[in-house]
């Protein structure tokens, strides 16, 4: 095979998403370099895994070779690559996100196979958004410099902190890294409400509408917190990493302020504070391999929803078998952020052999697995009996808790709504605020989550609907780009390995 034939075969296999065929074109030690890659892909395994993710991140792929020269084992090409990004959320004007660019490629052959393929192009037009100017009204996580260096390009704001969400890769590349490899997320904005003192556990039980009285040191537990009207304040994960420390690792609601207000001038013997603890998530099947290299504890022995008090890269830290991926992974909670970037770099270094990728939380995968995040500021007046995790609410637990009387009254009157899954019948834009919905009986509802599902190859969502809506029924939705219909279905959409 000459360079021109090899490059043509490579382009055809790329358009077909056939990573095996692409990798077959390379020598065993073949190298693929591209301007969009942080590091080259080397060897059969990296080539097949990496090229699979890149080639399947787009649809409607066309490559045009406009000029080429060959001499012996060398081929040089000028061409254009045209494709539509899958799962990119689209542009504000409704147009799909595209990656169209011209390139120069060099192909070096050895023994009839590609020894080195290099594609040079400008990625600036593919990521036109510069990092937005930020003001100090919001806090930075201690890993800020690392996320900027890792080419973060979209942030949200969470607990008054900048939340790195989207990095300079195609969504499917991050998705594959999470399902097949390992990813590092800066979630330093997940704040800990720390409870200490003789009444710490009882006070925790008073804040949560799940029974927390059976928790023991080393346990983690998902919980929901309500206000006195029975509306969800947040749905944190509670950790008990040390005998005298309980953390409510909460989402986008200031639970510390809430808990301190409740504890203040009360009889509770509890100290409530927000410690300088900025967690990281290391998610994906290879996360154990990464963290085992730098963690003192035996992480392989840990069960889901447990935590251990240990050291990571020489720093005191709690490590938990938890995370927002709906799959295998860990969270690392250093007891201080004084050496945060050392920890960040140590995880990246340990992950190098596993091709670790810095990503944001993968909303697509979370929704496929029915993992959501509910906060007081945007919960749309939802109570926990209407949530996907309504089954965890324990109104019969002996202890009183905030919102108990209100929830008992809601139960007595009958819960009016419930959370369900949606299978959209046509493309929808990125959900930036809740969309209105009408069920077959004309009753309103709200679409609270919407995303592309790589597993199901269609758009899916989660909505709050009238209790009477059955699975299989069709609802009408109005979104910023028009309207569509969706079939009501169960959540999660896919299993742990789906």
């Amino acid at each position, binding site marked *: 095979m000459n360079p021109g034939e090899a490059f043509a075969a490579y382009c055809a296999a790329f358009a077909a998403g056939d990573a095996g065929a692409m990798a077959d074109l390379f020598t065993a030690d073949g190298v693929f370099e591209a301007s969009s890659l942080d590091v080259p892909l080397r060897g059969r395994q990296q080539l097949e895994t990496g090229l699979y993710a890149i080639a399947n991140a787009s649809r409607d792929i066309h490559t045009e070779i406009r000029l080429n020269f060959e001499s012996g084992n060398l081929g*040089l090409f000028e061409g254009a690559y045209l494709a539509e990004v899958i799962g990119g959320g689209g542009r504000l004007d409704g147009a799909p996100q595209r990656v169209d660019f011209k390139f120069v490629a060099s192909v070096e052959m050895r023994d009839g196979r590609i020894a080195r393929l290099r594609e040079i192009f400008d990625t600036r037009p593919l990521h036109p958004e510069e990092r937005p100017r930020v003001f100090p009204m919001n806090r930075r996580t201690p890993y800020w410099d690392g996320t900027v260096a890792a080419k973060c390009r979209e942030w949200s704001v969470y607990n008054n902190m900048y939340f790195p969400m989207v990095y300079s890769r195609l969504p499917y590349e991050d998705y594959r890294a999470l399902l097949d490899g390992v990813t590092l997320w800066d979630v330093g904005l997940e704040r800990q409400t720390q409870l200490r003192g003789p009444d710490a556990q009882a006070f925790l039980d008073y804040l949560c509408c799940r029974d927390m009285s059976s928790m023991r040191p080393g346990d983690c537990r998902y919980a929901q917190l309500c206000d006195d009207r029975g509306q969800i304040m947040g749905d944190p994960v509670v950790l008990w990493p040390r005998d005298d420390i309980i953390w409510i690792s909460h989402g986008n609601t200031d639970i510390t302020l809430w808990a301190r207000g409740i504890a203040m001038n009360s009889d509770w013997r509890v100290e409530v504070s927000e410690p300088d603890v900025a967690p990281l998530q290391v998610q994906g099947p290879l996360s154990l391999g990464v963290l085992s290299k730098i963690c003192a504890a035996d992480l392989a022995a840990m069960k889901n929803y447990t935590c251990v008090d240990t050291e990571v890269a020489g720093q005191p830290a709690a490590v938990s078998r938890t995370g927002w991926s709906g799959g295998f992974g860990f969270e690392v909670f250093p007891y201080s952020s004084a050496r945060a970037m050392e920890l960040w770099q140590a995880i990246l270094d340990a992950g190098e052999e596993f091709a670790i990728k810095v990503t944001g939380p993968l909303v697509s995968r979370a929704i496929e697995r029915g993992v959501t995040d509910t906060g007081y500021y945007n919960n749309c007046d939802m109570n926990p009996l209407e949530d996907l995790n309504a089954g965890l609410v324990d109104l019969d637990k002996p202890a009183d808790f905030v919102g108990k009387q209100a929830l008992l009254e809601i139960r007595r009157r009958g819960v009016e709504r419930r959370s369900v899954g949606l299978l959209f019948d046509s493309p929808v834009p990125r959900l930036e605020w809740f969309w209105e919905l009408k069920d077959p009986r004309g009753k309103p509802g709200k679409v609270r989550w919407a995303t592309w599902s790589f597993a199901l190859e269609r758009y899916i969502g989660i909505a709050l609907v009238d209790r009477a809506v059955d699975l299989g029924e069709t609802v009408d939705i109005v979104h910023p780009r028009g309207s569509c219909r969706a079939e009501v279905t169960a959540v999660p959409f896919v299993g742990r390995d789906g």
Partner: protein
Amino acid sequence: MNSRGRAASLLEDYLAALGTADSAALDALIGEHTLLENPFLNPSRLLGRREIASAHDAIREQIESLDFDLDHCLGDAVRAIASGRLGVTRRGEARRDFAVGLVCECDDRSLARLSLYSDTRNARRWSDRRIL
């Protein structure tokens, strides 16, 4: 360098002249209808002597040194493709290196098209003033 031709020679001449900021040599390579595509410039597509000369002036003001190191170049009498590395030092800043691809086409007298390919994301452009 792998295979020489007239187009490849013109490309090398252009890169050398750009590196030494040799205005006369650059002007001699640019024609009335030359198209210059360079993502380090804004705008990145420039046409003809006046626009391209203005870009060269702007580059001279801001760039302390430019040097190209080509590892491959193939071409014939009228077209050439090359790849290699480009080192750039802005005045008062540290040198940065970029992978580059280059394509040139030429007519009887001058360059008809010179397209530079490089990833310019997170790279400051070569001139902050308006070229046109």
